């Protein structure tokens, strides 16, 4: 049979990878799918919603100072004590929180996965050294680290981002390292070595793809963790700083005005809670779909 002929016959296969099967299982989970939809809605609202208004979240409207939430145009949810529109500020704050959440989780995830895969595959002394380093970093007090990094980067989003990534890549590294260790004993890794693959090729092409389901599950838990620590740090005032909004500092200013005006706290608080719940349901669904031990 000629090769051209053979290749022409290769119609798009209905072949399903393990990954595809797992996603099929995930799609059958209603709660998780509803969470995906709601999360998508919130993300879209945060990134495109502000364009519907003729002002930005940093513009003060002196005709409406501390306007109540009366659902009247243009300030649907009212304004804060500087006359800034609350809804727009919350949506813009969402942009910052969500971006840091997903980007931070992605960067921390990639660093952690590669580090863990290398350590687990290499084994022996290299593994020991790499994991001791992780343990030392684990022992570092988080808040002090953030303050130090803020000093180093001059504060702001970059410092916050660096601090979050710096602390959160550790757990994926440990998880993937355990996975890689058991994979390194598998025959297909031996077969790859017998096939003359170098260590790096084996890590990238064989170890990492086989960790992917663990990584997806853990990554989905990592995103809310990152969002939460961003909010937490901004709430304490060492994260995103006024006038730039983030859910954390909006909630912080909401708590200070809590006695007189509860909605300043409620609106960003509710959105944050919703996003975290959605992400946790999604993580749950992913774990059910990916973890073979649960069935």
């Amino acid at each position, binding site marked *: *049979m000629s*090769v051209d002929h*053979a*290749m022409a*016959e*290769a*119609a798009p*296969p209905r*072949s*399903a*990878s*393990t*990954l595809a099967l797992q996603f099929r299982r995930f799609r059958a989970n209603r709660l998780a799918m509803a969470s995906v939809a709601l999360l998508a809605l919130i993300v879209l609202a945060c990134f495109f919603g502000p364009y519907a208004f003729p002002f930005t979240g940093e513009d003060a409207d002196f005709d409406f100072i501390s306007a109540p939430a009366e659902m009247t145009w243009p300030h649907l949810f009212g304004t804060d004590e500087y006359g800034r529109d609350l809804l727009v500020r919350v949506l813009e704050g969402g942009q910052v929180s969500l971006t840091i959440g997903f980007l931070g989780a992605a960067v921390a995830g990639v660093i952690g996965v590669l580090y863990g895969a290398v350590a687990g595959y290499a*084994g*022996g002394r290299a593994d020991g050294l790499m994991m001791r380093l992780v343990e030392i970093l684990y022992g570092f007090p988080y808040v002090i680290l953030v303050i130090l990094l803020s000093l180093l980067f001059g504060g702001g989003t970059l410092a916050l981002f660096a601090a979050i990534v710096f602390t959160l890549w550790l757990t994926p590294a440990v998880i993937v390292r355990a996975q890689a260790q058991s994979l390194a004993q*598998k*025959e*297909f890794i*031996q*077969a*790859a*070595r*017998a*096939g*003359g*693959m*170098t*260590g790096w*090729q084996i890590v990238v*092409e*064989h170890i990492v*793809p*086989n960790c*992917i389901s663990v990584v997806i599950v853990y990554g989905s838990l990592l995103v809310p963790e990152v969002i939460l620590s961003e909010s937490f740090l901004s709430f304490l005032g060492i994260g995103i700083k006024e006038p730039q909004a983030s859910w954390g500092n909006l909630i912080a200013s909401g708590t200070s005005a809590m006695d007189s005006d509860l909605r300043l706290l409620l609106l960003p608080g509710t959105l944050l809670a919703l996003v975290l719940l959605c992400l946790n349901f999604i993580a749950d669904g992913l774990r059910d779909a990916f973890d073979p031990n649960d069935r």
Partner: protein
Amino acid sequence: MGCVTPLTPMTAEPLLSLQELTVRFRLPQGETVAVDGVSLDLAPGEVLGIVGESGSGKSQILFALMGLLASNGRAGGRALFQGQDLLSLTETELDRVRGQQVSMIFQDPMTSLNPYMRVVDQLAEGLIVHNGLSRADARAEGVRMLDRVQITDAARRAQLYPHEFSGGMRQRVMIAMALLARPKLLLADEPTTALDVTIQAQVLDLMAELGREIGTSIILVTHDLGVVARLCDRVAVLYGGRVMEEAMAETLFDAPSHPYTQGLLAAMPRLEAPLTPRLGTIPGTPRSGGGDLPGCPFVPRCAQRMDHCTTRRPALQSIGPDHRSACHLTGAAP
């Protein structure tokens, strides 16, 4: 029982020459010897069977050659492959030999393919890395090889993932992968142990046939004497990490000399043999690991042991044309 006649005269320069190969493992309770001074030659195009019970060190010989020993293992002696000592190569130098000149087939086809990679990509990987083929060319080559290992509808099946293949098909994929680079030497570590009996013969014949076509020498490690009888030109019987007897397959089956070989053959069911109520057994349990022994490792189980068997190690001596045995019974008088 179709014995294959040797294709090359034994006088040819050996492709692989093991000289006093030893494999030792460091264990918490001390050092254990898995392979104890094995010397074997392999001619180009020859199929050599290494037979032995579990723990006789037969697989460790292959792992040592491939540089795949566990981290507490150490290989000694020399393993000259085309004059180059495989044991002294660095990892980087080994990567130029492995997968191109020497390849290996593993015991369990269920775990020797990456579950997250399409079969065609696993086949292509080696060609891309070693031969610098483009992805498309390497894939086409992989599909052609799948076709040759008799996987029907190879072009479509190549796009599948390993879990969509049966055990026999996976082992054929492994054979395709191992032979894709046209290696000079193929190491097969009990390639059919995990397979259905009806599939075993198919897979073995396929391996031998393709090996012959490509001109690959094969070392086949197995505990199955039937497999050896079917495929091998020459056989080495291993016990306790040492070669007990080595002969052409026909010689070994017709006139086994070593008491251990005789015991093994007596334990093998044969169609042409007269019906006996029970198959023979070898008393005792196989020796596995342990430290250095002054005498013969088979002594505790040997029916014909003599006093000096425990104290003096029998050398592997020639006892006929292409026939060597390590036993005081056949060797020179003590």
